[in-house]
C-alpha cells in the first residue's frame, strides 16, 4: 500500500476528489457550451460574501450560508439578465464586484481577513465524513438531473428560440441549472478554493472539446480527464508538499496542452 493511503485524511480527500471530479466535468460541459464561465466564477467568488454572512448570522458551519447565498444570487442574476438589455457580461461584472467587495469588507472588519484566506486556495485534506456525504448526495442529485434535463440543456445552448418551439421552458431550465451549479460550487469551495474552482469546471471540458465530435464523447472525455487529473494531482501534491487544488489544476492544464498540441499537429482541430 502506498504511503499516502495510510492516512485517513488522504483517503477522505481521495474519495472527495472522486466525487468532485465528475460533478465538475458534467456541469462544465454546459457551462462552457452555454458561455457561463464568468457566471460560475461569480458564484465561486460570491462565497466570500456567503462566509461573511454566515459569520454575522452566527452559523456554526459557513457552508450552509455560502450555499444559500449562492443559490439566491444565481436566481437573482438570471432574473436580472432576463430583465435588462445590458449584456450578460456587464451584469455579471457588476455582481462580481459587489459580492467580492461586500465579503472582503465584512470579513476584514472582524480582526483581519487572513483568518479566511484558506478559502482562497482551499484545502481538500480537511474534508470530513459529513462533507463527503453531502458531496455524494449532490452527485446523486446531479446524475438524476442530468438524465432528465441534459437534452433540453443542449438544445438551449444551441438556440433558445428553437428550444422554446420544442416546449422547453428556457428561463426555468437555465435557472434550475444555475441553482444546481451554485450548490455544487458552494459545497466544494472549502475544498477547492475560490481562486481555483473555475479552472476545474473549465479545463477538463476545454480539453475534451478539442477531440470530441459528439456529445457523448464530450461528456465522457471531460469526466475521464477530470477524474485522472484530480487523482494524480492529489497524490502528487502529497509527495511535493504543495496545495492540492492548484496541483490538480496544473494536471488538467497539462492535459489541455498535450491534447491541443497533438490536435494541432494532426490537424484534427
Amino acid at each position, binding site marked *: 500500500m502506498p504511503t499516502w493511503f495510510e492516512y485517513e485524511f488522504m483517503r477522505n480527500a481521495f474519495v472527495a476528489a472522486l466525487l468532485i471530479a465528475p460533478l465538475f466535468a458534467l456541469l462544465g*460541459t454546459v457551462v462552457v*457550451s452555454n458561455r457561463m464561465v464568468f457566471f460560475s466564477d461569480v458564484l465561486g467568488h460570491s462565497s466570500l460574501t456567503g462566509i461573511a454572512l454566515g459569520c454575522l448570522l452566527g452559523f456554526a458551519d459557513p457552508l450552509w450560508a455560502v450555499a444559500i447565498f449562492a443559490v439566491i444570487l444565481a436566481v437573482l442574476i438570471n432574473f436580472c439578465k432576463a430583465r435588462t438589455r445590458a449584456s450578460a457580461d456587464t451584469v455579471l461584472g457588476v455582481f462580481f464586484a459587489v459580492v467580492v467587495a461586500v465579503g472582503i469588507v465584512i470579513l476584514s472588519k472582524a480582526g483581519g481577513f487572513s483568518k479566511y484566506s484558506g478559502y482562497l486556495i482551499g484545502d481538500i485534506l480537511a474534508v470530513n465524513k459529513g462533507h463527503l456525504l453531502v458531496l455524494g448526495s449532490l452527485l446523486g442529485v446531479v446524475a438524476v438531473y*442530468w*438524465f432528465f434535463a*441534459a*437534452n433540453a440543456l*443542449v*438544445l438551449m*445552448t*444551441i*438556440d433558445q*428560440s*428553437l428550444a*422554446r*418551439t*420544442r416546449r422547453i421552458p428556457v428561463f426555468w431550465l437555465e435557472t434550475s441549472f444555475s441553482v444546481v451549479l451554485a450548490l455544487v460550487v458552494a459545497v466544494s469551495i472549502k475544498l477547492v478554493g475560490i481562486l481555483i474552482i473555475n479552472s476545474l469546471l473549465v479545463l477538463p471540458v476545454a480539453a*475534451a*472539446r*478539442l477531440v*470530441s*465530435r*459528439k*456529445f*457523448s*464523447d*464530450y*461528456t*465522457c472525455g471531460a469526466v475521464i480527464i477530470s477524474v485522472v487529473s484530480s487523482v494524480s494531482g492529489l497524490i502528487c501534491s502529497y509527495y511535493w508538499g504543495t496545495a492540492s487544488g492548484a496541483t490538480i489544476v496544473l494536471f488538467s492544464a497539462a492535459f489541455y496542452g498535450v491534447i491541443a498540441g497533438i490536435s494541432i499537429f494532426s490537424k484534427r*482541430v
Partner: protein
Amino acid sequence: MPEHVYGACCTEIAGLDVSLGRIRVLENINLRLNCGELVAVIGPNGAGKTTLLKAILGEVAYSGQIRFSIRGSLRQDIRIGYVPQKLSIDYDTPVSVLDFVSMAVSSKPVWLRLSGGVKDKVHALLTEFSCQHLVKRKIGALSGGELQRVLLAAAMTPAPDLLLLDEPVSAIDAKGLALFYELVCDVRRKYDVSVLLVTHDLADVAPHADRMIFLKKKILAQGKPQDVLSDRDLLMTLGPSVWNISELAGFKIAVKEKDTHDADLV
C-alpha cells in the same frame, strides 16, 4: 386518444403592432396563413421580417391578435417548427448532426451512447432531407445550406402545424438554395403544413411560393409572386442587387426606356 391530424392549421394575424423600445417595427399587419400554403416574406433589411417571426413565436411583446386554429377551433398549443437564421454556436461545439436530430426523434439522453433504433430513425429522417451523409459532422461546422437542411429535418419531427423558416442572408449557395426550396415544397405537400418563409432570395423562391408578401414595417404588397415581383418601384427599394432579379426568376418585366440608365449601374 385520436391521432394528431396534420394540415388543418390556420394562422390569423390581425392588426399586429410591434415596437422595440421606442421604434415601431411592425404596423398593422393583417395576414392569414392557410394550411398547405407556402408564403414568402420579402423586404429590405430591417423591414421587420424576423420580428414578425418572433411575434408569431411569442418572443416579442405585441398588440393586436395572433390566433391559431385547427379545424376551425381556436388553439393555443399548436406545434411550431422553427428553422432559425443561424445558430450562435462555436465552430467546435461537440454536438454532431446525429446528436442534434436524435433529440427530435427520441428523449434518450444524448450524453449516453445512442441505441441502434434511434440511429436508424435519425438516418431515415436525414435521408428524407438529403443530408444522410452529414450524420457524423459537427453542427457548428456545417455550411449554410447543409445546416438549413438538418434544421428543417429536425423541425419536421414531430410534424408541426406551422413551419417558420428564417433564411440566412447569404450563407447558402444557389444550388443548396434550390434543393432547400424543393424540400420545403415537398414537406408542405406531404404534411399539408402552412409555411412562412422569410427570404432574401427572390429568384429561387418565386416559382415555389403560393403567395408573396412585401414587408417594410407594413405590408406594402401581397399576392402571387409574379404580381409582387412585377412592381418594379417596390423592388427598387431592395437595392441594386435585385434590380434584375425578376427577370432571373423568369418573370418578364417591361423595363421602361427611361429606366435603362438605372440598369447600367448594376
